[in-house]
């Protein structure tokens, strides 16, 4: 995908002095080769500080170039490489191999259609995001200078500004797994970020959207989302705050 690496033909790093070898089992899927997904094992030499993303690079660059996954920043900022690692959603660039044991299972995130290997179709996820109108909505006259906000007002929604849209939360949600009509945790986090922003006037509208049959009331409070978030956002809490705002009609 986005792998553009300059040093392609150099000596495989880590092979000589590597500390240990781990088995990485990847859920492979390529509809042009096999209509079924299969597990494939790779023996990967890893160094002490390696992240899982480094192990995947080892595979892609030195063992099997057909392995397909998304990554861009490699430092937990862009949100490209959320995957199901040993059964839980994590960013491959943020988990250390040393914390994962000797056999590591890597699967695509659940609930979205797999396109190839670890790459899923993110469109339903983005569709839910767009549906909550994730942009500033204002009314009245345009101020002549910037829209000021107190530190306290800014702190109110600070947690939900941290989202990098990796989809780890939404694809860890059992309600989303069985019914992708549900908005999912990420869209609610995105809405929360504006609903509780003192400069925004669209709260009512967004609350109405989330009051929908497929909105916040489908949340079962399983906390999978909070557990999955690589940014440490208290996702379930944000969802509960939206529910509370709906019940009491205030923010």
């Amino acid at each position, binding site marked *: 995908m986005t792998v553009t690496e300059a040093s392609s033909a150099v000596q495989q790093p880590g092979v000589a002095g590597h500390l240990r070898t781990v088995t990485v089992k990847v859920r492979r899927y390529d509809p042009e080769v096999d209509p079924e997904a299969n597990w494939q094992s790779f023996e990967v030499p890893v160094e002490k500080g390696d992240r899982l993303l480094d192990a995947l690079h080892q595979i892609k660059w030195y063992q099997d170039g057909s392995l397909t996954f998304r990554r861009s920043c490699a430092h937990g900022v862009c949100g490209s490489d959320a995957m199901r690692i040993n059964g839980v959603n994590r960013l491959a660039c943020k988990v250390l191999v040393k914390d994962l044991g000797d056999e590591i299972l890597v699967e695509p995130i659940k609930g979205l259609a797999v396109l190839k290997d670890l790459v899923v179709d993110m469109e339903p996820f*983005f569709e839910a995001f767009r549906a909550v109108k994730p942009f500033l909505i204002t009314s009245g006259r345009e101020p002549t200078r910037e829209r000021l906000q107190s530190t306290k007002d800014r702190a109110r929604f600070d947690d939900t500004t941290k989202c990098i849209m990796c989809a780890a939360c939404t694809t860890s949600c059992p309600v989303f797994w*069985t019914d992708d009509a549900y908005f999912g945790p990420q869209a609610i986090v995105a809405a929360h970020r504006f609903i509780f922003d003192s400069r925004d006037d669209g709260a009512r*509208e967004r609350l109405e959207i989330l*009051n*929908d049959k497929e909105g916040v009331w489908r949340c079962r409070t399983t906390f999978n989302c909070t557990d999955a978030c690589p940014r440490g956002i208290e996702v379930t809490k944000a969802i509960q705050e939206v*529910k509370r705002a709906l019940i009491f009609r205030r923010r």
Partner: protein
Amino acid sequence: MTAVVTGDLPVIEAPRSRRSGGGNGTNFEMYAWIFMRMSGLLLVFLVLGHLFIMLLLDGGVQRINFGFVAGRWASPFWRTWDLAQLWLAQLHGTNGLRVIINDYAERDGTRFWLKMLLYTSSFLVLLLGTLVIFTFDPDITG
């Protein structure tokens, strides 16, 4: 590197337009959600109280017979208790199953028929239970 654009570009609605389709504009799901919490809370007391009286208090379950029930239902208090228990538990359970069907039934047809089955059986239980509580007659001699 070639950028691959699949499908049409995303359409973003104008800020103040209503979302097309989907929303039914009612607060039904919200009230259902609140009902689940409230009825659950009440049922804890009603059902635990019921179990305590029926199974543990003097003589426990051994003493329950027609006469015992008739004696209890002579008081409107216990009739109201049992009626509340019946309605709250039945609606709580029905709504719980409705939500589970929404979660797990994948086809619209399955969803519809499962819900029909659920609502019919739930209605029958409510009807029968309510009928008995209101029309109970301790005189069985004739």
